[in-house]
């Protein structure tokens, strides 16, 4: 056996007092960690194959399993963590770029957790959402700069095309290919029932899901996979993906193994070929090119659909957003550096981009300073983890938020961050038919509906506490926020006061 430079990351702890050898773990592990040994009449484990997805733990009928981090420790260094050392060993072995999935897990500040929300006491009353109307309807799109009147003096109520949401939450872009058909079906049906939208990502739209078109945002990304007239016509809005928070400046790569028959048809590429999205759109090398694509898409859809431009939160995001607002986009989606992905180079995911909280605050303020905040709606994305994060995002200035990871959690994802392996035990990030099957869309869609409804209840409760009975009065209402443990510079960028001020 060759030298094993690094130990298994996880250890499977099996309580043999409890294990009844039903072998469900064995049958459900796509990584083949568990095996029944007839000679020992015992379940054995191959720890080094475990990714800590928790599938076996979740289904074990006698709770006999635990997956724990391997306690084997390299000599401690505050500079070279064990993780870093392992990654170098891995690269020394493979010669390749490290790949990761889901959001940046590194120990950077989470500004959501350093922001506190206000509530009414004495001078104005909190509002009880169970007794009084509490409104969360949101319109996304371009708003007029002022009132226009018809020749007869009445008000011209014509508007640019917009999206109408029952709640300020949308499902963010996850492509068919990166996630399974059942996952897509769950999202599509949930969005329809909730009165919001899900997003095709860059993988095109499966024919079976055209029926959910009025709750679908269709994405046009640099690879242009699956983009054709029917696709654009079917969606309620079109999103141009310029960048993704998890991998700013990087394109996408869906390995050929995931391009099976249906994915191939939907993406309009041959089976088994890698689907490579270039880093830039090769027809957009500057802002004026973006404007042309926006209007090409509008022209193709007869100006009936709002166009979203999604960008990764990078250092000069405020200026970029200002440019986009002036380029005819109706909505800007900003994706923070914690945003999820089906696969990204580890070093990019963990080191490029900026937090959504700062990016959002900077963009909203810049657009207001320039008097063009009305030109676009803002969707904040890239790690909105709870209803409280959503409330904070809206108070900082977002019109709505995209949620990706929480939606995956609702479907069973345990953030093992191994999407790129294609062996998702939860049937989400995989195209293997036996694994895809594990996500029952009847169950999945209901859990998504439950999750978002629960968030919306909480948003209403928090709003009520602040004495706000409609979500628009929360948007950009930064006086409702206070920072805790933040420097003056951070407070200035967020545009909020410190707690106690």
């Amino acid at each position, binding site marked *: 056996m060759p030298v094993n430079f690094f130990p298994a990351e996880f250890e499977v702890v099996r309580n043999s007092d409890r294990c009844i050898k039903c072998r469900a773990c064995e049958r459900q592990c796509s990584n083949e960690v568990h095996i029944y040994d007839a000679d020992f009449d015992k379940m054995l484990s191959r720890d080094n194959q475990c990714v800590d997805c928790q599938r076996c733990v979740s289904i074990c009928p006698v709770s006999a399993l635990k997956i724990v981090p391997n306690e084997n420790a390299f000599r401690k260094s505050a500079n070279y963590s064990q993780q870093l050392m392992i990654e170098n060993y891995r690269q020394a072995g493979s010669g390749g770029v490290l790949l990761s999935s889901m959001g940046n897990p590194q120990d950077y500040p989470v500004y959501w957790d350093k922001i506190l929300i206000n509530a009414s006491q004495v001078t104005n009353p909190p509002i009880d959402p169970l007794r009084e109307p509490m409104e969360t309807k949101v319109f996304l799109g371009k708003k*007029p700069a002022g009132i226009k009147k018809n020749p007869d003096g009445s008000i011209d109520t014509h508007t640019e095309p917009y999206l109408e949401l029952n709640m300020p939450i949308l499902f963010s872009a996850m492509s068919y290919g990166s996630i399974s058909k059942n996952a897509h079906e769950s999202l599509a049906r949930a969005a329809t029932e909730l009165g919001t939208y899900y997003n095709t990502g860059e993988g095109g739209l499966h024919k079976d899901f055209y029926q959910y078109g009025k709750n679908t945002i269709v994405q046009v990304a640099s690879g242009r996979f699956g983009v054709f007239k029917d696709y654009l016509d079917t969606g309620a809005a079109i999103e141009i993906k310029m960048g993704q928070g998890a991998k700013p400046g990087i394109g996408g790569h869906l390995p050929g193994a995931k391009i099976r028959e249906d994915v191939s048809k939907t993406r309009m590429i041959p089976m088994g070929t890698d689907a490579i999205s270039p880093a830039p759109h090769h027809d957009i090398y500057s802002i004026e090119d973006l404007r042309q694509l926006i209007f090409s898409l509008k022209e193709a859809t007869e100006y009936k659909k709002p166009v979203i431009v999604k960008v990764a939160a990078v250092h000069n995001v405020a200026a970029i957003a200002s440019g986009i607002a002036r380029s005819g986009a109706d909505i800007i989606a900003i994706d923070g550096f914690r945003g999820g992905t089906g696969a990204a180079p580890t070093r990019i995911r963990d080191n490029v981009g900026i937090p959504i909280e700062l990016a959002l605050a900077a963009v909203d303020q810049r657009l207001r300073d320039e008097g063009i905040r009305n030109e676009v709606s803002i969707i904040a994305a890239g790690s909105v983890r709870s209803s409280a994060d959503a409330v904070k995002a809206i108070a900082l200035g977002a019109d709505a938020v995209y949620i990706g990871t929480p939606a995956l959690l609702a479907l069973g994802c345990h953030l093992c961050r191994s999407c790129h392996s294609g062996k998702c035990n939860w049937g989400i990030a995989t195209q293997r038919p036996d694994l895809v099957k594990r996500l029952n869309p009847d169950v999945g869609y209901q859990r998504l509906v439950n999750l978002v409804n629960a968030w919306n209840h909480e948003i209403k409760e928090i709003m009520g506490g602040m*004495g706000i009975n*409609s979500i628009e009065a929360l948007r*950009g209402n930064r006086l409702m926020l206070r920072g805790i443990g933040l420097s003056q510079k951070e407070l200035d960028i967020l545009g909020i006061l410190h707690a106690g001020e």
Partner: protein
Amino acid sequence: MLLKEGEIRIPAGCAISGFISRDGNKMNGGDIVKSISYMHDRSNGLGGGFAGYGIYPEYKDYYAFHVFYDSNEAREKTERFLDRHFDVINLSRIPTKKVPSITNEPLIWRYFVNPLPTKIAASQLDEKEFVAKCVIRINNDIEGAYVFSSGKNMGVFKAVGFPEDVGEFYRLEEYEGYAWTAHGRYPTNTPGWWGGAHPFALLDYTIVHNGEISSYDANRRFIEMFGYKCTLLTDTEVITYIFDWLNRKQELSLEDIASIIAAPFWSEIDEIEKKGPQKAAKLRYFRNTMSSLLITGPFSIILGYTGGIMALNDRLKLRSMVVAEKKDIVYIASEECAIRAICPDCENVWSPKGGEPVIVTLSEEGKRKCL
């Protein structure tokens, strides 16, 4: 150190009162003082003020600036500015009377002015906009000067103190007007600055407001996109700017403005849809495109403007407000006692519903007399 109004946001509870004679009959300023005094417990001596309309008939074509000065130096600077931009017809100290409870008074001056046509032309603004810009400039740029009233044939009188003492201080019984509003303030902090008292005024718009709006920063950050600067951080200030923008600049009717700032709930719009799809379409349009001007949280306001007054409650009616009538006079107050105090036999006493505007304008006869 205590921060001055504008350096900190101070929540406040309040009393408001107002009345208008539709036929333009002149009513004595003493009446409004008496009315507001009956709601003494709704203020705490830290702010009181009044607005009177039709009080300067002899100067009705001139903008009447009421100005607080901290020093003569500020006054001289301001007067130099006024001389450069306006034709100053008349200037004087506003007559006051010593009242023991009113202290720390600044210098209080009044100017009747008209903007210089050459300056208006050079600014490429219309006259009102030019005047408004000049007022904002004095308030922001000249240390120790604060223009607190700037409309034609109307005036604001305000101070730190109980409203009845403020009325006595300004000798309001010596003024006659077709409409009056009043405010008694109950701030939860000690502002100690006269400029922070209410009404708040811009041109001929004045607002008296009771409440604490929860949408404040959403409203402020929106309206500031259109050239306004909320320096006082008060609800009243931002509400005044919203009215100014929607009414003066966007030329929306007061009814439409009410359906933006106290928009009907979606459930109500759905009901309206059944009876009047066109009206519902307009309401939807407002809620879509003007959503940042929705005001939530408790408020009852009286807007005064040339030729009328308007009263409005927040859409949940979280603040008391009563309306009553007698002949051609319409009374509005936080409490009925404030109306009964000056009109014991008032009729048609009612509480307007949340979000339902009460708009009273001068009759044809009233316009003939007063405008």
